[in-house]
């Protein structure tokens, strides 16, 4: 007969949290920056098809670090939630706050009830009509939710990257400035001074998508050429 050992709830939660933290820190960082033109999402990701950044709805984007299969299933669940909600009510009734709260509940439930917690950290970003109306939510593996101002850095050596981004962040940045800042942050924990365009994944939530592109869908993925061109235009 095997003996059931008593493990205190504190110890159990601490073990799970340590396990999840380790998994998340192994990966590479993602930076989400709110700026004048909208919200820029930048991830260090050499794969052109396995994305860490995705579109959820008209004004809402998703970014994640950690295990691909886990955050991909969360992303798909988010798209389904948003589309069902928008279809049954109205498109404008889909908000980042509602989505973030669903994510928080599912992450929290997995953390306490399942064999193993999700080794992921998520950002849910919603672009508003002005930078003040932008929403950035950070969701961690235990279901904690934080409403962030300005920018979010997740995964990898998040402390170092976050320091570098905080030093250069200001609300008046345009997309080129914000992406440049994010890229300079992503190399903060590395020997190299720059990342090639093929090693990063960049997407933006365009604040003025209705007037500039004639679509309510603000999300736009930037190709390698777009990134190179955007970074070349020095101001």
């Amino acid at each position, binding site marked *: 007969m095997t003996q059931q050992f008593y493990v205190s709830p504190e110890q159990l939660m601490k073990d799970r949290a340590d396990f999840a933290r380790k998994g998340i820190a192994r990966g590479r960082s993602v930076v989400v920056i709110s700026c004048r033109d909208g919200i820029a999402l930048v991830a260090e990701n050499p794969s052109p*098809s396995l*994305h860490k950044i*995705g*579109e*959820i709805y008209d004004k809402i984007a998703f970014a994640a670090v950690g295990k691909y299969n886990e955050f991909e299933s969360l992303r*798909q669940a988010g*798209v*389904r939630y948003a*589309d*069902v909600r*928008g*279809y*049954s009510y109205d498109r404008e009734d889909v908000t980042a706050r509602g989505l973030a709260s669903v994510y928080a509940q599912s992450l929290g439930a997995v953390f306490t009830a399942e064999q193993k917690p999700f080794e992921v950290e998520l950002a849910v970003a919603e672009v508003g009509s002005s930078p003040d109306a932008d929403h950035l939510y950070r969701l961690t593996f235990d279901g904690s939710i934080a409403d962030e101002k300005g920018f979010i850095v997740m995964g990898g050596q998040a402390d170092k990257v976050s320091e570098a981004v905080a030093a250069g962040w200001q609300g008046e940045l345009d997309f080129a400035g914000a992406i440049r800042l994010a890229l300079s942050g992503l190399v903060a924990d590395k020997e190299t001074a720059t990342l090639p365009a093929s090693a990063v994944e960049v997407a933006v939530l365009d604040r003025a998508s209705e007037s500039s592109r*004639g*679509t309510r*869908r603000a999300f736009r993925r930037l190709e390698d050429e777009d990134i190179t061109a955007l970074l070349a235009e020095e101001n």
Partner: protein
Amino acid sequence: MQETTANQVAATATSSFTEHLQRQRPDLLPFGQHLPAGSPAGAAPLQAPHGTTIVGLSYAGGVLMAGDRRATMGNIIASRHIEKVFPADQYSVLGIAGTAGIALDITRLFQVELEHYEKIEGTLLSLDGKANRLGAMIRSNLPMAMQGLAVVPLFAGFDRPAGVGRLFSYDVTGGRYEEQEHHSVGSGSVFARGALKKLWRPNLSEQDAVAVAVEALYDAADDDSATGGPDPVRQLWPVVYIVNRSGAVRVPERELAAMAGTIIESRAAARREA
């Protein structure tokens, strides 16, 4: 054990919004509602607004779709402002004829279906894929069509790999037929089709194609009481969408007002019966 898990994952993985609703929220689907089997003897048939005429035609750079602005309920004009041609996604449009309430909901479902696939898969559905999905939705509506609540769409899109605009028509059973040159659906379609046969030429320019579509709708409205003609009093013009390599765009009202004005003037000047 592992094999069954893989099968389960594969079975639940879907990129289709309609399939997701069928599993989770079937009550939200526009079709598949259980109606009482047949109305009691002597009861008046169900009255609901009906959308009327849609025309689609190809031109040099792609395809174009136009619809009049009228919905009717028996002999009553239910709406003078209804719009029956919609962008389905960036590269395709659809027009609807038949029971307006169900048709508008199917349109909305189809739009979400295409966007949902794009977001889940990270790529656009092929034009044939889109046309087949729409056919499946129309087939799902067959039980209601048999009770008189039919929806018949017309679908047009730009096939980017092939570099051509294509046009698809449907029957109530979801049958999908690719049309050449031009096609029309709805109550005034017979008259619109006659007009298109005389007006359409290969390789029309974009502007000429819009003029042909507006004139075909004018002819349909002339002979079909359920189709609305251009209305200078209320400043109502047909809804026209153009689909080409750069995507689907709506033709601005003032261009349509000018074209409708030209047609009315030329018909008035001819002083002929038709």
